[in-house]
């Protein structure tokens, strides 16, 4: 069951990362709030894959592999998970004060080859690749992909523990706290690939509410040599951010390339 689920996640991950951002639908999680006060705060989250942000119009985002990291670094739970026609939903109980990270991260290999004139397709982990894909497969095509999709939410005072990068795949190391963003102010971030600065990578930022305007309002930014970039938020609202890298640093020699995507949702407050 577990591996089936993982494969389903990978299928979506790899399909999206291979198709590339231009052709892909957008994946996102939309929290009901990211800045909370009070004794017993909860958030509810929509998760979907769609063209327009943030509307449910295509397919739900599969929640397999969803993780919640509590402010103290321990694993939290995503409660009341449900998947409908167009969206998945879940709740997070912010029972500790501080900043939470909610993420869908996965990495794996996708392979295809010919066997007796038939096209075979395989998805799995780096470890299972050698065992399950024939060493002498004909016309073998192998791609490696990693995806991270996340957002942050804070009860009370923002904290830093969950902001520490995992060192795997493409990640954001916030300089400005992700739950302290205000329209008209500049926010600084660093993009990391496997924990090291990802330089010269294009980062796309799009404000939500696309349906009710003509202009996409897309901001194209670029990381500098240290992986750093800044965003000045034009207005308050929910924003979608995404970046993708491609390189040859594959875990299995048969893979031609490795792609990594990072996607996050940020809430920007009015001043």
């Amino acid at each position: 069951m577990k591996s089936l689920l993982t494969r389903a996640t990978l299928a979506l991950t790899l399909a999206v990362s291979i198709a590339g951002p231009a052709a892909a639908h957008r994946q996102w999680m939309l929290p009901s709030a990211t800045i909370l006060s009070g004794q017993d705060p909860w958030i509810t989250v929509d998760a979907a894959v769609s063209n327009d942000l943030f509307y449910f119009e295509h397919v739900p985002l599969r929640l397999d592999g969803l993780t919640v990291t509590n402010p103290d670094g321990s694993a939290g739970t995503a409660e009341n998970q449900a998947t409908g026609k167009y969206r998945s939903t879940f709740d997070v109980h912010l029972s500790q004060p501080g900043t939470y990270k909610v993420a869908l991260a996965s990495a794996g290999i996708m392979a295809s080859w010919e066997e007796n004139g038939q096209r075979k397709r395989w998805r799995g982990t780096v470890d299972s690749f050698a065992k399950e894909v024939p060493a002498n497969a004909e016309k073998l095509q192998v791609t490696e992909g990693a995806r991270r999709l996340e957002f942050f939410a804070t009860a009370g005072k923002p904290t830093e523990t969950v902001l520490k990068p995992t060192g795997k795949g493409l990640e954001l190391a916030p300089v400005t706290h992700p739950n302290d963003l205000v329209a008209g102010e500049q926010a600084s971030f660093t993009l990391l690939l496997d924990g090291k600065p990802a330089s010269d990578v294009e980062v796309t930022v799009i404000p939500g509410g696309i349906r009710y305007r003509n202009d996409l309002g897309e901001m194209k930014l670029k990381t500098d040599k240290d992986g750093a970039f800044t965003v000045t938020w034009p207005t308050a609202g929910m924003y979608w951010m995404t970046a993708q890298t491609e390189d040859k640093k594959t875990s299995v020699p048969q893979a031609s390339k490795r792609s990594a995507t990072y996607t996050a949702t940020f809430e920007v407050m009015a001043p």
Partner: protein
Amino acid sequence: MRTLLSLSMTGLAVTPVMAGELAVTVEIPKLEVAEYHRPYVAAWIETPDQQFVANLTVRYDVKMRDNEGTKWLKDMRQWWRRSGRDLTMPVDGVSAPTLPVGENRLTWDSAKAPLNGLKPGSYALVVEAAREVGGRELIRVPFDWNGKPVKAEAKGESELGRIAVEVKG
């Protein structure tokens, strides 16, 4: 705790004790709306470059069961960012019930916290109001704190009426 916080956060020295008082008038306008709830109101002192100095009062549903009234404190979003998120409510001497419609005159003794630590200089009184199923408004009234009498005021447009500062030397 409050004294500790206001001192540590502002770096104020406990030096000049000026006799007198600070009076703040907060007018809550009467609104013709179908569903009316008294607004949450925070009043604090900041420097001219908008650095937080000290809280004067935070008016919210203090009496709700299980401290539930704190759920909407974040709607005073500038206060929340400058101070509220760093506090554990209720804060003694700061937390207080919501204000009724009309002019509310609130006073602080300059010999007591938080004013006893306030260095002479230029400041602003900031009043922020956020109303359930209503709007939000923030008003700044600059004033000088140097032992001399001051009268200054500003007028809100939606959630706040007249906001006045009076320093009595």
